[in-house]
């Protein structure tokens, strides 16, 4: 019986190794583009409904955490179904590999949000910049199995994050477009890379 379990473990290890050397095609460009539009819509909603976000951080957080949760839910569901279709026989390993690269960045973002809310509510203005930097780091970590052009999108998020941290204080604090613009454009850039960046292979034929 032990030999059988050893054989199953070896098959699992081979699959994992194949997955690590495979370009991940589970992210759908259309869905990612839709999340970019969602970020734009959330920014418009905030600018209409939340006139002074600096004095109502709770409202600001409610809008953007809901938007992020919705985007993650839709992207997650679509990624799982698409991966099962485009990576038959490897789907579980590919999804695990993708999650392993991106989830730590999301986790760090959630953790920093909780810590700032609890211990340093005066510094909440930093959140948009920090979220963009963490998101950019998640993209960098995922680059090894995505088209090479994705590096440029990671740089975009790092740059916009740094800009938000530099200029996002005072009257600009928690402005709607600090989130809407970088994530709206960034997600559309990701969608463009996913749509046009993959190498043509015999699998596509």
């Amino acid at each position, binding site marked *: 019986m032990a030999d*059988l379990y050893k*054989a199953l473990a070896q098959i699992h290890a081979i699959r994992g190794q194949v997955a690590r050397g495979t370009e991940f095609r589970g992210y759908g460009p259309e869905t990612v583009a839709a999340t970019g539009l969602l970020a734009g819509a959330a920014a418009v909603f905030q600018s209409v409904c939340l006139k002074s976000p600096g004095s109502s951080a709770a409202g600001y957080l409610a809008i953007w955490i809901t938007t992020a949760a919705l985007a993650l839910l839709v992207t997650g569901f679509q990624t799982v179904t698409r991966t099962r279709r485009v990576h038959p*026989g490897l789907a579980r390993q590919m999804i695990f590999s993708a999650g392993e690269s991106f989830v730590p960045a999301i986790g760090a973002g959630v953790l920093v949000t909780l810590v700032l809310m609890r211990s340093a509510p005066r510094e909440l203005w930093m959140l948009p910049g920090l979220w963009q930097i963490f998101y950019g780091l998640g993209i960098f970590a995922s680059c090894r199995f995505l088209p090479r052009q994705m590096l440029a999108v990671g740089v975009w998020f790092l740059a916009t994050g740094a800009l938000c941290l530099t200029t996002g204080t005072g009257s600009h604090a928690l402005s709607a477009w600090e989130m809407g613009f970088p994530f709206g454009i960034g997600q559309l850039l990701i969608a463009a890379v996913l749509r046009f960046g993959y190498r043509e292979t015999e*699998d596509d034929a």
Partner: protein
Amino acid sequence: MLSRKQARQGFAYDALDSVIHERARLSVLTSLVTHPKGLGFADLKTMCALTDGNLSRHLQVLKTAKFVEITKDVDNNRPHTFCRITAVGRKRYLEYLAVLEQVIRDVVAGEKTEAAAEPTQVPA
């Protein structure tokens, strides 16, 4: 006697491709599938513990089945043979692996059923 589930599913394992289901060729394909950029003939020979003649013969079988592509060039005035798995080979290998996994799972399930059916000995 077979359970209804076993009778329905059967143990035919049609997808156990005979081209892949040979120890040396399985070894060659496993080496190549885990090195998607390809391997040189000498590296492949070492990894699979095969002789030159044996490896050439098995590579020819895999090439005929369109599972691998073989390129030959000259590097530092020495002939260099390079082997790479094709998309077809990769797909068929993964299908083979799935069936192999199912075979083992069926055996594990069978052994568990047998162990559960054995009467427990009550000490006198």
